[in-house]
């Protein structure tokens, strides 16, 4: 799951070195957090959140494989 988001994010941003993805599991729930450079926020969110939503759809498929539910958070850059 983590790898999926990492792959998509790295492929879409201008600065792949700033892409960080963390994964936290509690029972069947998995929380994926994506960090990207401030300038790349738009690329991983997209207009009206279209990119973020598409990533969530694909993440759901990846998670369904082992019966878990995954949520994707895109973290505000500090």
């Amino acid at each position, binding site marked *: 799951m983590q790898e999926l988001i990492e792959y998509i994010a790295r*492929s879409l941003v201008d600065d792949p070195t700033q892409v960080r993805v963390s994964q936290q599991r509690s029972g069947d729930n998995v929380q994926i957090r994506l960090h990207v450079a401030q300038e790349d926020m738009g690329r991983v969110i997209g207009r009206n959140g279209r990119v973020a939503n*598409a990533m969530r*759809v*694909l993440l759901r498929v*990846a998670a369904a*494989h082992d019966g878990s539910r995954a949520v994707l958070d895109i973290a505000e850059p500090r």
Partner: protein
Amino acid sequence: MTEKTATLEIIAPTIEEAIEKGLQNLGLPRESVDVEILDEGSKGLFGLRSRQARIRLRIKETGPLIEQATTKEKTDSHSEKESNAEVEDKTPTATSPDIQTSSENKVLLVAKETIDELLQKMNVNAEVSVHFGEMDDKSGTKPLLVDINGNDLSILIGKNAETLNAIQYIARLIISREIGKAIYLIVDVEGYRTRKEQQLQKIAARMAEEVIERGRSLALEPMPPNERRIIHIALKDHPKVYTESTGEGSHRKVVIYPK
């Protein structure tokens, strides 16, 4: 042979057709499989809201004979696809000089790699084949067609083709970025879009008849842009009706008017 590889998912207009198609694919008699109905499909009113039936065939006892049959089937379809891809690669289009052909090959390669990578990371096992479609008259570009074939069909299409569209969108962004120019990408799973398109064309024709008969306009169900486009194109040159879209966002629908 694991249980997973001994199942096959089929999508067809009706359950009966799906079963028949599946048995044909497997080369097995009806008694050798269990049928699980995943989606009964529905005809809907006037063919609106119609969904195709989805079933899963599970091979009952994987005896040596059956195993052989399925393995053979797989290798066959595989080699067929490969030889198709080869033909496609080696056929230069009339207008394109070598440079264009080689850049087209690069696009095919990038597309295949991208979709393979996405599916693998989504834990989906599938065969991917890519080729260019017919030149689109309007935009003057050739669409890049990606076909995905495998066992987990339902999950790859999703509700209202949600997953299919997400794969298509993300893949288009990644591939366009990789090759440095916008591409027109269509991703299909086991001919799902093609069948959907034929279904919509039938609906368009039937509704047009209805409009002519009643002499007043009719609104179709709300549809996504690509589906509305199919309806518009289907009735573009119709002598007695014309089409328009009304409504906003997800409520946008096609209205057919008498001329």
